[in-house]
């Protein structure tokens, strides 16, 4: 008896859309059952909150066709389709649990434009929204779905991770889409149910998971799949690749272990510390000596500032190392890119979006070291503060990879120059979803009016750009960083030792003199 009452009492969505009586009825039911928590949601209140907070993205009709839809990838969710990415209800169910919706609205969906609303909406308002969202797909009459069976969680251990690794690669079960190293370097072109381009998640970047990379969360995603996208359910009885509960825990532990914490951006790290070498600088990206240089990772943001603007990037970070010796400086740039984009190459063109172009990367440096605080404009300089652009392109079927050099005086004012004249050289390699590129140049050149002359110990502004040619990125459509700093960190030498000794002696002398005076004063 209590049970059935509870069920209908907890299902606020049984109410017909515009009834006035229902809130009263509902509160009575709640009183009967004695639920002390927040009131059940109210669709009418939810609709008002939706109009104020959500409509601009999710659309007036809830169909995801808000004003910015074509500028967002992934696009805002179409609530009329009843497809939710994050749920803990079983594969057969349509509705996510209210807790799933609560969590997505409260915490937001990292890696997308969907922000967390927990800081501005109350728990009650979120409940109201949940009820309203369900009415958009006619889900208000649906029973609560059955929750997935987690069985007994397998704790993270080297053994479990190893088992998970085997399952992940077995018959290319996961690596088919997520790649050998889990970087989402797709071998297939994927589209979601509405025809939008989707990219398999780069599993090494936990901050881009819509849920989280906690094994329990990963377990749920593998179990239910991600509705509306190609990410399949591995609990689907019809699937030949179905996994047992225990197997799913092993894979979850393995995926969790893929997180590359050294590629997490630390906002306080704004300086690339170039390491001084006594021997030759490394000339290839895979030279093990690069490991000795300190890596610094920066956010890449899409170019939203000048014509043509670009809104849908596929890369979010770039990791930089630098070394130098007496004559030369070398940069090592490393960034994840799901596709090696070689125009003219058949497989590359099949995966790419329309209009494939070369993958590329560029380092931007001011030509003159700024004397005061004023730096060149961070998007390709300005007329009175020109910048050097060192670029590297990944090549096409009819064009070898190579470097180029340019001077820019603003977003549209670029002059190409001969890289050989300045001694600019480069090399790159693409493997399992990651580009690694080396760009190097002598510290000083013959033309100080056109090229930056590197100086030890100075803070040198530096910025980066990257192009994913399979994601429609070319020309002004690319990702970039703001200005950061490069420091050629000279060895301190023996100056600190010398002056420290001097300080010791001086202070001691002053003390002795003082003590001596105090003594003589006492006896006279």
């Amino acid at each position, binding site marked *: 008896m209590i049970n059935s009452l509870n069920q209908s009492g907890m299902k606020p969505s049984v109410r017909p859309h515009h009834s006035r009586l229902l809130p009263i009825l509902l509160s009575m039911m709640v009183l009967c059952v004695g639920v002390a928590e927040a009131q059940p949601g109210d669709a009418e209140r939810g609709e008002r909150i939706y109009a104020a907070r959500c409509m*601009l*993205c999710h659309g007036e009709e809830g169909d995801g066709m808000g*004003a*910015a839809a074509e*500028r967002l990838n992934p696009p805002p969710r179409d609530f009329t389709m009843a497809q939710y990415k994050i749920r803990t209800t079983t594969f057969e169910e349509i509705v996510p649990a209210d807790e799933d919706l609560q969590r997505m609205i409260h915490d937001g969906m990292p890696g*997308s*434009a969907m*922000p967390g*609303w927990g*800081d*501005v909406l109350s728990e009650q308002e979120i409940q109201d929204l949940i009820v309203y969202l369900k009415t958009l797909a006619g889900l208000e009459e649906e029973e609560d779905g059955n929750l997935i069976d987690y069985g007994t969680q397998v704790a993270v251990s080297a053994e479990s991770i190893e088992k998970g690794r085997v399952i992940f690669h077995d018959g290319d079960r996961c690596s088919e889409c997520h790649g050998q190293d889990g970087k989402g370097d797709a071998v297939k072109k994927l589209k979601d149910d509405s025809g939008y381009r989707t990219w398999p998640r780069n599993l090494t970047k936990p901050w881009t998971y819509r849920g989280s990379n906690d094994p329990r969360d990963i377990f749920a995603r593998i179990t239910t799949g991600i509705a509306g996208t190609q990410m399949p359910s591995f609990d689907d009885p019809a699937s030949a690749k179905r996994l047992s509960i225990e197997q799913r825990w092993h894979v979850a532990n393995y995926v969790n272990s893929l997180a590359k914490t050294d590629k997490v*951006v630390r906002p*306080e790290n*704004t*300086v690339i*510390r170039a390491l001084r070498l006594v021997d030759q600088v490394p000339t290839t990206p895979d030279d093990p000596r690069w490991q000795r240089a300190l890596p610094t990772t*920066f*956010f*890449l*943001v*899409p170019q*939203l*500032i*000048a*014509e043509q603007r670009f*809104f849908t990037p596929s890369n979010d970070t770039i990791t930089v190392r630098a070394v130098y010796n007496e004559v030369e400086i070398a940069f090592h740039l490393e960034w994840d890119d799901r596709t090696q984009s070689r125009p003219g190459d058949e497989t590359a063109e099949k995966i790419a979006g329309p209009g494939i172009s070369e993958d590329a990367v560029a380092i931007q440096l001011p030509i003159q070291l700024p004397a*005061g*605080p*004023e*730096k060149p*404009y*961070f*998007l390709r300089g*300005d007329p009175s503060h020109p910048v050097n652009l060192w670029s590297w392109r990944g090549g096409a079927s009819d064009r070898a990879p190579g470097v180029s050099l340019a001077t820019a005086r603003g977003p549209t004012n670029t002059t190409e120059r001969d890289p050989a004249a300045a001694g600019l050289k480069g090399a790159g390699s693409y493997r399992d979803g990651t580009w690694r590129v080396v760009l190097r140049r002598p510290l000083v050149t013959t033309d100080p009016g056109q090229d930056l002359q590197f100086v030890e110990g100075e*803070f040198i502004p530096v910025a980066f750009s990257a192009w994913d040619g399979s994601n429609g990125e070319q020309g002004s459509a690319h990702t970039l*960083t*703001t*200005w950061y*700093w490069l420091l050629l*960190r*000279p060895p*301190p030498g023996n100056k*600190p*030792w010398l*002056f*420290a*000794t*001097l*300080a*010791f*002696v*001086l*202070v*001691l002398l002053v*003390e*002795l003199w*003082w*003590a001596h005076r*105090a003594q003589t004063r*006492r006896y006279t």
Partner: protein
Amino acid sequence: MSTAVQKPVIPRLLQAALVIAGIYAGFWLIFDLILAQPIPQSLMVMYMFFVVSGVFMVFTFTEESARQLIAPIRALVEDQTKKTLRNVVFIVVPALAAVAVFFQLQPSDEAPLELRSIHPAPPSSVKIFGKRYDLMSLENPYRHLEKDDPEQFQELVAVGGEVYIRNCQYCHGDKLDGKGPYAQGLNPVPLNFQDIGTIAQLQESFLFWRIATGGPGLPKEATPWISSMPIWQEFLSEEEIWQVILYLYDYTGHRPRSWEHE
């Protein structure tokens, strides 16, 4: 009991040291722990210099207090019974000085400090959309509708909202809190319009100028001149800029500053 006045329970020197340490800990607590915005070291050195001089000024205000402050030091040098302690102190103090000098001379890895004014004084007139505007008298042409025709006003706010979500949310965030999806990758960070220190302090004409001319349109005193705020007169019409301004105030619930209140 009367000696308690002469000789405080905690020696004056220790008191001074404790006050300075307390202030330092306070800085650390507020900026590092609570605000998570550590003060750059060079600035901290400057602040602490003023703190130390201030504390000593207070502690040596009268001759008596000055005498009390240095009393323990004098005792150390003059009092024969404290000989061992003196020898230790005489080695430790120069050693500390040496260590300080040693670290001071290490090449600094810390990024140069960049201070800037966020709301520079606007020029009295600017050229936008090829026309000259007098910022002192410029008003939002739609503002009067708020009273005269609330329905049309709400429609214009809605249009402004669409302009915002299509163009501005990437940086300023769809909650207008300056935390858009790409905000972290920009320096300076996009402004938070919910904060009472931004648009709530400004006139609509100031916003019009800042939106139309963006980062590159900032005057010299706003250097380093790297704000990523785009030049919106290249993308939006004059009407759209006024509409998006209506939306900024409507969504945040702030009121623009107006000339009448000056």
